[in-house]
């Protein structure tokens, strides 16, 4: 029954090579002023800077069953990154607004499962491969224990994202939206520190862009000359900060944007019960950065479908052709999601580890259908 069973484990320490040189020195670069050349401070000296280290423990097992018709891989990992190097905002009274420094320690723990099966292996061949992953990221400690802000600047609070102890890296930051006051039509936010003023001190972690789990499934079926391949992928439990919507439902902050149809539900007269605050020109309060613009980004997407047909060689040999294949491929054909924006697979600040999952005027991924004929001579 078991054809192959392998258990493996690894342990290692790795560094991070994507670090600018000379971060430990106070440096000056060239500058010009009114036609003369001189020096301007380029970086603050940080004699305490150290290498970042990631200690990774990984245990995996590969198993192959029933004449290799079922193959599975399970991996469990635990990565502990100490002395995480990141540009950190700095008190400008030092003359510098940021410093590259060891900001703290971070942990990534996760499990990955991949299974591929040969369901049918006769005249009809049907193979399935499925993978699912879960990663849990957490900032364990921060130097100074102070949160670091990142992402965009929005009205109401300092930033859209935060790096905070005990929270996933780059969690969303904002106010807690409590609804619309039926008497005044203004937004109500939770005054966390009870000082009577709504500002960054009332900000809190409102969610994060890390999915609870994500993965994909591919089915490949072939019969005689026909073959079909269908790929779905999915993500569950991640949040998206819909900044596009905060512009398109801006409560009159500015008149430069067209508004969504949902704006028709706005509060208009005392007694209106709604979750859309009133519109008032130049009012920013009613569209402060809050969990009002945070949405569930879970999705199931038909990422790729391709159907092909190979014309039997016997029919084409007399034309001195070795192969003719006709095919149609489609991508992003269908998506199931509750997300309000154009595409749940977004990240405007792509590449930033400290501010993921923001949708600000992002164009959706294109839906394509392509067909073709391949002729081999």
């Amino acid at each position: 029954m078991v054809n192959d069973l392998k258990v493996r484990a690894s342990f290692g320490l790795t560094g991070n090579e994507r670090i600018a040189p000379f971060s430990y020195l106070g440096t000056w670069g060239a500058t010009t002023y009114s036609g003369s050349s001189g020096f301007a401070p380029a970086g603050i000296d940080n004699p305490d800077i150290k290498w970042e280290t990631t200690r990774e423990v990984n245990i995996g097992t590969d198993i192959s069953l029933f004449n290799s018709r079922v193959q599975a891989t399970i991996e469990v990992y635990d990565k502990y990154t100490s002395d995480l190097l990141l540009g950190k905002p700095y008190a400008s009274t030092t003359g510098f607004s940021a410093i590259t420094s060891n900001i703290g320690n971070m942990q990534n723990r996760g499990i990955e499962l991949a299974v591929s099966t040969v369901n049918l292996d006769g005249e009809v061949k049907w193979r399935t491969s499925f993978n699912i992953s879960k990663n849990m990221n957490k900032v364990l400690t921060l130097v100074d224990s102070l949160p670091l802000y990142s992402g965009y600047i929005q009205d109401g609070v300092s930033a859209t994202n935060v790096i905070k102890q005990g929270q996933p890296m780059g969690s969303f930051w904002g106010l807690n939206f409590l609804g619309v006051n039926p008497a005044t039509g203004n937004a109500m936010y939770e005054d966390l520190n009870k000082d009577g003023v709504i500002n960054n001190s009332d900000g809190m972690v409102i969610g994060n862009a890390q999915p609870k789990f994500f993965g994909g499934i591919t089915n490949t079926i072939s019969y005689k000359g026909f073959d079909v391949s269908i790929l779905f992928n999915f993500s569950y439990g991640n949040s998206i900060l819909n900044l596009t919507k905060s512009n398109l439902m801006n409560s009159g902050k500015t008149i430069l944007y067209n508004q969504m149809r949902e704006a028709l539900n706005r509060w208009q007269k005392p007694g209106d019960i709604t979750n859309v605050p009133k519109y008032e020109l130049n009012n920013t309060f009613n569209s402060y950065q809050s969990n009002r613009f945070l949405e569930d980004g879970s999705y199931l997407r038909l990422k790729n479908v391709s159907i092909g047909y190979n014309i039997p060689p016997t029919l084409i040999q007399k034309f001195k052709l070795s192969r003719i294949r006709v095919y149609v491929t489609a991508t992003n054909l269908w998506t199931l999601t509750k997300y309000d924006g154009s595409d749940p697979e977004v990240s405007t600040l792509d590449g930033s580890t400290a501010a993921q999952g923001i949708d600000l005027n992002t164009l959706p991924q294109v839906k394509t259908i392509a067909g073709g004929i391949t002729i081999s001579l």
Partner: protein
Amino acid sequence: MRKYLIISTIIGAGFVFDGCHDQLNPKPIDLVVNDVVLNEPKDIEGVVIGLYRAFRLSMASTILAGDLTADNLTHNGTFAQYRELAIKQITTGNATVSELWATLYGTIYIANFMIERIPEIEGVTPAVKTRSMATAYFIRGLCYFRLATTFGGVPMVTVTDIETNRNIGRASKDEIMAFVLADYQRALGNLGSKQPTPATVCDQTVNAALARYYLYIKDYASAEQYATTVIDSKDYVLEDDYKSIITKDFTDESIFEVGYTISDDNDGTSLNDLFVSRREMIPSNNIIPIFDSISNRACGRRRLTITFKTVNQKGTDNGFEVANYGTAVADNNNIVVFRLAEMYLIRAEARAIQGKVGGANNTAQSDITQLRKRANFPRNDGPKDTVKSHWVVDTLATAPTQAQMILLIEAERRLELSYEGHRWYDLVRTGRVEQVMPPFNANWKPAYELWPIPQREIQNNPALVGEQNPGY
């Protein structure tokens, strides 16, 4: 043979170790490190240039503080930081607020660096040493003056030590203002005579700064005295034609302006980008009648401060634009810090408050008349003004009462100095802000007489926690 082989092996190994050492400890090629940037007499000039350039970075947000926080500009773009300032819903996270704070302290860092290191450099001639130290003191004073008038009391940073400066609380506004005066006095007399261009400072620049300083602290006799010193030096003369103020750099009346050349025009926030290319901010409907009405016989050629383009006029966009700041290739991309007309206005105000209102000589009236006469320069080349009489200015033949004169000077400052970063500071300084601003925008509240301490500073400097300005 074998012996040679061993020796050459040892030498070879020596090379290898040496090369390895170089690879592991490379030296920066395009950067200079703290320890050597200011070590020899010849280094001083480069760091002074860096000081001016750092100060230049603060000027765009200074202009916005003065004009956008008040009633001279309306928001016409998309950026939250400018919208907040324009519609009077200023929040502590505002990026322009942080920019002004950070650029001023960035300048102060270089000044402190110079003040700490220049005395230790061997072989510097006394003249170079005196002048460079005085430049550092003076620019530092200018920065603290801007910080105190914008934020109130701020951290007083006087050294470069990072551990000290990252955890430092607010000094009182009076302490900062006293420190500004001390810095100006350390500079005065050590900066020498007028420079080839007003891109760098001289003793008259310090006198101009002192005139402004005393006006702000309401010591009118001293304000009048220092303004008179600058005017009587005859180092600067009013341009014949006000148009030059709008269209040219380094005018004859410029006392100090931060200079841009084509290559560094994109250094920091570009006012041309904000006012012309993007039209992020446009002259407010409140200021337009002052410049664009024939019946305002105080304006004259100062109406060239704003220009009208039909193509821009649509929706809430009134079609006007601020004309002071040109593109990199234009001759008007510098930002003026002090110019002679302001000295006349400082003196006029100081004299009016001291009771020297009307009369042909040494009065507020005689100072204002100088500016009115210049604005009346008889030319006729404005696109919108085809009739020569549009430029005609009432040259203030008779003096009004003292109270009227003080208001007239406030209006005159707006005509003369709009988009040079004065209006908000003027209204707060004279206490007129609570009369002028609420009618302009109902969101105005007295808290906006100061900008907030940037939220990011409170987050990153433990000594500022709980020290925010009231009302934010």
